[in-house]
Structure formats: structure tokens, C-alpha cells
């Protein structure tokens, strides 16, 4: 009954005209950035972070959340029609989706991607609604050692799941923590690594770093090679999948949904890894695995369901523990913070309208996405035809404006350029930007909880092992760290990294 009353309250908030408008803007922009290669949800959300200031916290968070799950829908369109993923989580959809398109079944692939996304997205919201309150009750008992160990676990898992060298990913996570600590020390008020620059006293902004590493670096990488795009538009055909398609896809959708949801909750996990895991699972479970990569519709349905379910699941650690499990959620945390809100176990009791309003808006947003993706597919195809040489100057302009608007300082524009060059070089040298950004956000919390724990324990590190939740997190982190040393695990991890590449 409590749950029912909370949802009624949530729909009361989500159905307010202004919140409906923000929800629509969010899912529309999300679909757009999902469709457009070269700009993803991370760049779009950092760009629009300052925009959330102009409305209520509910409206801002609803819009930001809409961009995230909206981009999961839109990404599949580009993968299927152009064979270039609109965003990373749709990488795997290229394999069979584009093959289907080449064989004249683009309509069925697009339709199945949208319907699987809708089913998985809806499941994830129901599960979020049921799991989040229970987890929040447990999370109230968390102290500094538990928070510290959970964040260590999140960063370790993210490094473990990153492409390529784990040492490089951990190096980036360490560098991210370092960047996050620049500025005034929260306890002693001493300036740290500010190099006598007044602009650095408050630390480096999240938006310039994200826009540099993901926006500018992506443009620089795309510019150095000729992007050839061939949009398949001739035979999109009917979007509603046939009965045979449904029969083939019902179990992949269900498996992808459950797998994606749980991988989404995992700190460090997320939509990208869940779509690859779902594809691998479906190929393994199929009686005809040789069809995969040659236009098997299950290879579209499973991963699309998984990445949308993961997008829903990712809200759980943020909303209940206040810990973002991935970069996108780190940006959402930024949106909470600029409105003076702290997501965590008390969010549901202190701000029930916000929490349940966001959850309810996700139901509405999912329905909006189905409408945007099914009948309006022709419009998204037109967007895809926009040449990159027209697109990239505009993206650069939006990056500059977004960064300037976030802090009203030209210094931030220079920070963005520096991180753009760094991000470009990192791609060249095989270093992942995602662990850096997540660690940057978690850095101050990590240090704060470490210092508090040591003060509480009078300098005894055993405090992290004496408390069961903290010890369990550290043991899991140690397993993730040591696993690559076991040859069998190392081979599997390398294979996953190669698949992702």
C-alpha cells in the first residue's frame, strides 16, 4: 500500500505539465544524441547540466534521466542503419542489426530494438521501484568504512571491465582521484595543488573535464580519419516484427532484461558491458550460433533489452547509496548537487516527491520513446544524413557554450581544451577515460571516508576488514584485481576487450 501511495505521489509530480515537458525534452535529446554518432549521453548531459538550474530539481533530474535512457533507444538506429554505434552500448547491435538492414529487414530490426528496449526499460523501472526502498533501508547502516570500500570496489570493477590493460585503467582511476582532490582540503582548509590559481581553489569542474575527454577528444579523433557513412534507407519496410520474430526473441529479451538490470546495479558495470554479455549469452544458448553476425534478430533483441535494463538498474546505487556506478550517473549526481540535494538512503524519506516523481517519469518517458522511435524513424534517418563536417563545428560550439555556462569562466574553456587534447592522446595510447571521470567524482568522497574511518579507528586499517559489508567489498575488489593474473580469467577478459573494440 505504501508503494502504491508513493507511486500515486510520483505520478502526481511526473504528470505536471512542466515536468512532462522536461521529460519529453530529455528523451528527445537522448534519442537525438543516441542517433548521432560522435556525441553521446555523457556529452549531452554535461552540456545541459547548467540548463537544469533554470527549473525545479524534479524537472532537471527528470530531463537528465530522460537523456540517459533515451540515448539507449536512439543508439540502435545508427547501429542498424549505418553500422556505426550512436553510443557505446549499441556497439554490439551493429553486428546483426546492420546485417538485417543489408538483407532488407531494417524495419524489423528497428522495431524489435524499440520494443525490446521498451519492455526492458519498463521492467527495470518496476524493479527499481521494488529494490530501491529495501536497499535504502540497509544503506542507512553504512558508515565511512563501508562507503570507502564500496567505492574502491566500484572503481576496481570498472577498471576490470574496461577495454585493454587493467594497469592503465587503474592508472586512470588513480589520476581521476588525484584530479578530484585538487582545491581546498575539506578538513584543514589548505589549498592543494592549486598552483596559486584562484580558479582552482574550488577544484576543477566536472563539466570541462567531461566535455574535454568525451566531446572534444571524440571530435579530434574523428577528424583525423575520414568518416565514411552509408545510410541504408531504401528498404526500411514495416516496423512491426513478425510472429516468428517474436517467438525467436521472447526469451532473449527476458534474459537480456534480467542480466542487464543486475549488471547495471553493479558498481562499475553498466549498459555497455551488459549488451556484450547478453550477446555472448544468446550466441551460447542458441541452437544455431552460426547465424549470429549474419542477421540473427535475437542478436538485436537481447543486447537492446540488456542495455535499457542496465540504464534503469544504474539508478539504484545512486538513489539509495549516493554512489554513482558509472560516468552518466556521476553527471546525474552533479545535477543533484547543484540543486543542493544529496542522493542516498535518506532521499526517499526526505524528498519522496523527487524520488517517486523521477521513477514515475521513467514510465512516461518509456512510452514517449516508443512513440518517438516507431513512427518517427523517418525523421531520425534524415538526422543521420547530416554530414559530420557540418555537425562537428556545431558540437564544438555547444561544448564551449556548455562549459562556459556551467561556471561562467573562460578558464573552464581552457581546461576543456587541455582535457580534450589529453583525451585524444589517451585514446591513441590506449588509456580509458571512463575510470578517470568516475574516480574524479568519487575522489573527494573516497578521501573523506578514508580519513573519517582512520580517525574513528585511531589509525587502524583493520576497521575495513572488521565490518562485514566493507570486508566483502574489499575481498571482491581484490578478486577483480587478481583475476587477470589467472591465465584463464585473463584470456576471457582479453576476449571481452577485443569484442568491445
Amino acid at each position, binding site marked *: 500500500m505504501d508503494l502504491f501511495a508513493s507511486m500515486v505521489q510520483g505520478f502526481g509530480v511526473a504528470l505536471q505539465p512542466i515536468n512532462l515537458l522536461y521529460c519529453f525534452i530529455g528523451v528527445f535529446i537522448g534519442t537525438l544524441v543516441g542517433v548521432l554518432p560522435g556525441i553521446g549521453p555523457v556529452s549531452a548531459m554535461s552540456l545541459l547540466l*547548467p*540548463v537544469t538550474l*533554470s527549473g525545479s530539481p524534479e524537472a532537471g533530474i527528470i530531463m537528465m534521466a530522460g537523456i540517459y535512457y533515451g540515448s539507449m533507444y536512439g543508439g540502435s538506429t545508427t547501429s542498424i542503419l549505418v553500422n556505426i554505434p550512436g553510443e557505446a552500448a549499441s556497439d554490439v547491435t551493429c553486428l546483426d542489426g546492420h546485417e538485417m538492414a543489408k538483407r532488407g529487414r531494417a524495419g524489423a530490426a528497428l522495431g524489435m530494438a524499440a520494443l525490446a528496449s521498451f519492455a526492458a526499460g519498463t521492467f527495470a523501472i518496476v524493479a527499481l521501484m521494488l529494490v530501491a526502498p529495501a536497499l535504502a533501508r540497509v544503506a542507512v547502516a553504512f558508515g565511512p568504512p563501508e562507503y570507502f570500500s564500496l567505492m574502491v570496489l566500484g572503481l576496481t570493477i570498472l577498471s576490470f571491465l574496461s577495454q585493454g*590493460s587493467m*594497469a*592503465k585503467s*587503474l*592508472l586512470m582511476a*588513480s*589520476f581521476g*582521484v*588525484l584530479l578530484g*582532490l585538487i582545491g581546498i*582540503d575539506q*578538513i*584543514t582548509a*589548505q589549498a*592543494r*595543488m592549486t598552483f596559486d590559481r584562484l580558479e582552482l581553489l574550488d577544484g576543477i569542474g566536472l563539466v570541462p573535464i567531461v566535455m574535454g575527454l568525451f566531446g*572534444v577528444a571524440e*571530435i*579530434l579523433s574523428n*577528424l*583525423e*580519419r575520414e568518416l565514411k557513412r552509408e545510410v541504408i534507407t531504401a528498404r526500411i519496410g514495416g516496423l512491426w516484427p513478425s510472429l516468428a520474430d517474436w517467438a525467436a526473441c521472447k526469451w532473449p529479451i527476458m534474459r537480456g532484461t534480467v542480466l542487464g538490470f543486475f549488471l547495471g546495479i553493479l558498481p562499475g558495470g553498466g549498459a555497455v558491458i551488459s549488451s556484450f554479455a547478453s550477446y555472448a549469452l544468446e550466441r551460447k544458448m542458441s541452437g544455431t550460433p552460426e547465424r549470429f553476425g549474419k542477421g540473427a534478430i535475437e542478436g538485436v533483441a537481447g543486447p537492446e533489452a540488456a542495455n535499457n535494463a542496465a540504464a534503469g538498474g544504474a539508478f539504484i546505487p545512486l538513489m539509495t547509496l549516493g554512489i554513482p556506478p558509472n560516468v552518466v550517473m556521476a553527471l546525474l549526481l552533479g545535477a543533484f548537487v547543484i540543486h543542493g540535494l544529496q542522493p542516498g538512503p535518506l532521499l526517499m524519506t526526505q524528498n519522496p516527491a523527487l524520488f517517486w516523481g523521477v521513477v514515475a517519469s521513467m514510465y512516461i518517458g518509456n512510452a514517449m520513446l516508443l512513440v518517438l522511435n516507431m513512427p518517427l524513424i523517418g525523421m531520425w534517418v534524415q538526422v543521420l544524413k547530416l*554530414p*559530420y*563536417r*557540418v555537425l*562537428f*563545428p*556545431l558540437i*564544438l*560550439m*555547444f561544448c*564551449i*557554450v556548455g562549459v*562556459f*555556462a556551467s561556471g*561562467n569562466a*573562460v578558464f573552464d*574553456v*581552457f581546461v576543456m*581544451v587541455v582535457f*580534450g*587534447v589529453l583525451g*585524444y592522446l589517451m585514446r*591513441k*595510447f*590506449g*588509456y580509458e577515460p571512463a575510470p578517470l571521470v568516475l574516480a574524479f567524482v568519487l575522489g573527494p568522497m*573516497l*578521501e573523506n571516508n*578514508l*580519513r573519517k574511518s*582512520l*580517525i574513528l*579507528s*585511531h*589509525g587502524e586499517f583493520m576497521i575495513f576488514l572488521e565490518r562485514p559489508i566493507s570486508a566483502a567489498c574489499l575481498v571482491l575488489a581484490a578478486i577483480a584485481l587478481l583475476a587477470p593474473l589467472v591465465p584463464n580469467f585473463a584470456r576471457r577478459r582479453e576476449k571481452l576487450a577485443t569484442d568491445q573494440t
Partner: protein
Amino acid sequence: MIRNSELWGGLFWLAIGAFVIWAGRDMGLGKLNDPGPGFAFYWIGILMSALSLCVIAYAILTGGPTLGSLWEGTRWGKVLLVVALLLVYGVGFERIGFIPCTLALLLVLMWFVDPVDWRLSIVIAVVATFGVWAAITKWLKIQLPAGLLAGVLG
């Protein structure tokens, strides 16, 4: 060996790690029961140095692509040009103003970096610049530097 890009990458991060260790010590490590402001920096520096040494050791043992091969067959000149343009844009942003700077940036990008038909580029540059300026200043009420146009824009 000397041209191995992995080795140079590792050495770069090792230098950063060593600097962070020094900076952490300089800030003050404090005691274990009362960690100082440099405590976390010091340990992060050690972690970064250790991980860099792993990267360097791996590069020495298994090799890696040469520095030159990373840019082989790429249009790296365009990358340099865009970075230079962004830096010039940043320098002129407050003095010259958002509208003239952005118009110039968009036109240069569409004329010289990846050419677009000049008539189309002018339309895109003008519509995008004034559209964004109006949206940001009128709708979001965020001030953008007026620069040379301060008298005209108010």
C-alpha cells in the same frame, strides 16, 4: 625500444606519479589516526608510480607500437589546427565577445578544416551563433561576453 609508444606513455605517468608523491609529502602526511592534507596525494602518487612501472615493464618485455605509427596515415594537421583555433578562441572570447568569436570559429572550421559549401556554411554559422546566443542569454538568463558588441547588445 626508444620509439615504443607504450614506454613513453608509462614514463609520462611515472613522472606525474613521482611529482604527486613529492607534493603529498610537501603538503603534510599527518599521522595514521589523523591523516594530513597530503596523505591521500602521497598514496595516490605511490599507486600511480607502481602502475606506471607495470606499464613500462610490460612495454619493455612485449614491445608495442612506435610513436610514429600512431599517427601514420592520419589527418593530424586538422587536429592541430582545431586545437590551435580553440586556444585562440579562448584568448579572444571575453575581449572580442561570444558572437564575433563564434562566427569566426564556425566559418574557419567549415572553410578550412573540413570544407562545406561557403553559402551553406555562412547560413549555418549565422543561425547557430545567434540562435545559441538568444537561447542562452534570453531563455536561460546566462550572460555571454558581449566584447566588441557591448554597445550594440546592451
